[in-house]
């Protein structure tokens, strides 16, 4: 096992370096599909199950603590959770709710970081959404 591991890691290390650089530059080859760039199509709207007017009068966490418990816990223990950045601040409310918000939502508070992002990827690719670690 150790030999394969070492081999994988050695190859992997070299490959990773190469791979990372081409991922960042987002090279296009003939016949390949278009990749992750900042010009790709917009954010994804949510398909929230329909709620009555009365049901909408509930904070997101009331249901989502049960429905998406791992996301709730990730958020609760993250900087956003401790500083009470609530779901609707990123995801909006029913009239315009995003499953995946546009990066411009992050820019409201994180204008400096968003404008100076060296990669073409959206924030959460590296700063995992809801836990927001990794920088």
């Amino acid at each position, binding site marked *: 096992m150790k030999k394969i591991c070492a081999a994988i890691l050695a190859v992997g290390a070299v*490959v*990773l370096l*190469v*791979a*990372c650089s*081409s*991922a960042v530059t*987002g*090279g296009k*080859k003939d016949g*390949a*599909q*278009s*990749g*992750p760039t*900042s*010009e*790709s*199509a*917009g*954010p*994804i709207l949510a398909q929230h199950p329909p709620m009555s007017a*009365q049901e*909408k*009068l*509930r*904070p*997101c966490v009331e249901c989502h603590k049960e429905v998406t418990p*791992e*996301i709730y816990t990730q958020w609760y223990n993250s*900087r956003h959770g*401790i*500083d*009470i*950045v*609530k779901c*609707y*601040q990123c995801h*909006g*409310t*029913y*009239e315009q709710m995003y*499953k*995946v918000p*546009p*990066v*411009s939502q992050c*820019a*409201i*508070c*994180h*204008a*400096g970081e*968003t404008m100076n*992002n060296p990669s073409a*990827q*959206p924030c959460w690719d590296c700063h*995992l*959404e809801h*836990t927001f670690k990794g920088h």
Partner: protein
Amino acid sequence: MSLTRRDFIKRSAAMTAASYVGINLPFTHQNAAQAADADTWVRGTCRLCGVGCRLEMGVRNGRPVALRGVPKARTNYGYLCMKGMLFYKIMQHPERLKVPLYRARKDQPFREISWDEALDIAAKEFADAVRKYGNDSTAYYGSGQCLTEETYLFQKVMRGGLKTNNVEGNPRLCMASAVGGYLTSFGADEPIGGYANVERSYCMFIIGSNMAEAHPVFFRRVMRQKLDNPDKVKIINADPRISPTSRIADMHMQFRPGTDLALMNAMAYVIIDEELYDQKFIDDYAVFRVGKDAKQVDLASFKADLEEYSPEKAAKICGGNITADDIRTAARWFATSQGTLSMWCMGINQRKQGVWANNLIHNLHILTGQLCKPGADSLSLTGQPNACGGVREGGGLCHILPGHRVVANEKQRNQVEDAWGIPHGRIPPKPGYHTMAMFEAVNEKKIRAIWINCTSPAQSLPNVTPYRKGMQSDDVFIVCSDIFPTKTTECANLILPTAFHFEKTGVYGCTERRSQITPKAVDAPGEAMPEVWMVREWALRLAKELNDPVIKQCVAPFMDKEPDYELPKAIWDEYTQKLTKGRDNDLRGATYEVLESMDDGVQWPAPTKEFALTGGTVMKFVRGSDPMAETEAKDDKPYQFYGPAHPDRKLWIWSRPYVGAGEEPDADYPLYLSTGRIIDHWHTTSMTGRIPELMRANPYSYVEINPKDAARMGVRPNDMVEIETRRGKVEMPAKVVEGPMEGMLFAYWHDMDEDRMINKVVNDAYDPGSKEPEFKICACRARRISGPKALKPYITRLNE
């Protein structure tokens, strides 16, 4: 569902492999760094709390479309809370007041009238009141959310023009005790340091504050300091309730409401007993005082007064989870840290002994020398965005004058009269009615005409029912200027539509003595106008009605100035250049030009433009940081406490006894009732209640009940609970949560609905010194009424 962590890792693996051979995988998470589409971005200050976040409003085709933070601002560093992110949504709301509305009697519906008519009516009614009942039958009740220019001009016309000191504002209900505490402990109002101390602090003492919800963006800095230095930084949270703020605490001290005075005296006891005090600092800079006549005593006497507050005795008084060991640990952390920062808000201020509670916090800092050095400060958190700048500094309370002067001092009255170019003697020598007395005077028909600006006392006063009844009487003429219908416009005769934030230009001064400007970015809807224009036009008509040219003199420097920019600028220039010159809040360097060029603003004192452009005074009283510490220096010590209220130029350590709340639980009303805010809503919800995201997050007020009490009462989550005090009853849905301690209920106060308006039942006893009411503690009883009910959120509409 969005990407789980495992999916993410698998995706990374695939993408990495694919990139190696030049295959670009389809990217299913569509993203674009779309800028919110705006034509321009206009920089200003947030409209809501006292943190003073700087933000930019995105404007497209003359309409507000977005808000985003200013990354370089030293208050918020670009961050915003949900209220700061979303308040642009109310600006074009269909319920905005757009035309003046009038009714002669309060049982009639409102009808639309022109501005000319409206201002004529306002002038005539006030003039009639003066003629029939005297100058002191008129009053102005303003707000810590008014621009400084507005508060300053209103109080100028009231004092110099109508010759009454009946000038008050809602900061009387929140910050008056903090003012009293600063004046009696330090000799000068407002904190010595500011926010910059957070990043240098190693012990933070948060008492009587849920800053995670009430000052979220400032809390972010506290949270960050703790998370970045988890072992070095100690956070003590003292609160009868476990709140979201308690999450970051190393120690949570849960004491019976009202016993915080005993707790802090016990900490002082430990500091003295274990000789953790800074003898040199005390010798150089402090004296001990006791009693009404501020008799000077010595350390031995002070120590003797603390004998009944040994940790063991105090733990008994405090109950809750307080142990003698915890008190000792807290005191040791406080005294020995490299820099200790205290922060507090309404839990300390809204108390019958609010000034004393403030004094005891300051005591701890003075005893241990935790002042004037980086990371050490006694920082009162201000609730409203301009309670400091407009009301405390601009002369917006019945006993003070602009520039931190007091009505009672004849020399200072004359200084103000000279600056205004009016005869000596115009400003009456005695203070006017403080807020609770003012509304009592309305009830007693002593006040016959009152102008209420940008606040809603018909919901925000404690024990509000009798005061609201008084306001509904036809014996008092009420002018209400605001942006939306509120519970208070329901009591008005005349409603004047005002321009909102970013629809007019003006300055706000936040918690940390920093004045920051917000320019006009969009037009106000309909015929709404800036308040400064209303005051000027009203004053001109008053002068005619009363045949009193001095009233005209009060607005003479502001004639022919257009209301959006030139008029407030002229007012600000007069206030800063003439009224703050040489005072401890010297703002002469903070001209509009200077303020407009900065990402944030200027901390006073800032006597020159060059100094103002650096940001101003970071640490008051400290030579090298505060230019007035140089000019006012009397010796060569590094700290100079030149505050105007202490002629001996010393910090005063006050011996104060523990006294409980005004109304403690008893056999009939066995539970404590406390109230407070939540993060999504601002005050009476007249603004935030009209933003769907915020309303849905907290559509009504809840009452938090401890699980043990809930079990005893048979209450389950969302059950309807009736809360009754000697003053009335309300019904609220319950949250069963390990929040308030056993024997205590905690209700949110933002709801406008009659059934859920908690201020109907809270106590209006007030601090004898500061006159600030004790919203935070009273006695109640509670019972379960029913299971969950489908409730409707409620916002006032016009002509209901």
